[in-house]
């Protein structure tokens, strides 16, 4: 299972304008449901978990978030859904729920089992550590381009 096969072009979005983290998760959750990756319950558990264990991450040049939850039989297929935001929204940071981060790209994860995603997750975090790539990803405006930059980089 590699990142490329998990990152479906149909699940990369640019136009939505969520007001906050919960809205962003619901938008991506609905897309996941449309493409039959998850059951609706998964979105609820992700919203719930984001409250208790936020997933915002401060990178060198911008903020990202990786909302996800335990699968609990609600994940039908592994995938990553992406929402790129022209106007960043506030998430709370993973290591300190009292801290806020303005998030430009939301990567919602749907993962079926523990520990089977190591190489995919490592690639995702490699992307986060690649400042030039992250900056490029934040300004592209088509799923094709977004997908291409990631595929070229990993």
């Amino acid at each position: 299972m590699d990142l490329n096969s998990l990152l479906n072009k149909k699940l990369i979005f640019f136009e939505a304008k969520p007001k906050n983290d919960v809205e962003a998760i619901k938008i991506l959750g609905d897309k996941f449901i449309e493409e039959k990756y998850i059951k609706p319950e998964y979105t609820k558990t992700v919203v719930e978990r984001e409250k208790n264990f936020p997933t915002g991450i401060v990178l060198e040049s911008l903020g990202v978030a990786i909302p996800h939850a335990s699968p609990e039989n609600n994940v039908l297929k592994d995938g990553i859904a992406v929402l790129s935001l022209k106007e960043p929204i506030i998430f709370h940071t993973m290591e300190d729920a009292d801290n806020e981060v303005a998030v430009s790209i939301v990567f919602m994860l749907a993962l079926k089992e523990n520990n089977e995603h190591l190489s995919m997750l490592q690639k995702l975090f490699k992307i986060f550590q690649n400042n030039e790539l992250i900056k490029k990803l934040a300004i592209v405006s088509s799923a094709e381009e977004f997908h291409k930059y990631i595929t070229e980089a990993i």
Partner: protein
Amino acid sequence: MKNGKKLVLVACGTGIATSTVVNDAVTKLAKKNNIQLEIIQCKIMEVPGYSDGADLLVTTTVVDKSKYKFPVISARAFLTGIGLEKVENEILVELQR
């Protein structure tokens, strides 16, 4: 300590995504430095249940450090790459103690 090895707990909110990455990073770090250790990967909520004999908690999530009897190290650097060397050194110091 467990079976003569350091026992390291690696935790995140769900025990599924970031802890998987950190587990691998800590395993490689220990191997590179010839340190024998045992790692338990779990949800942060499960940490108290594994506390017996634990030498160190490495976590990506929100944590009240005063709650634990063992040192707690933030693993954020394994995700962002920022300050990675410093965190690796902190972990090595604890493992070689």
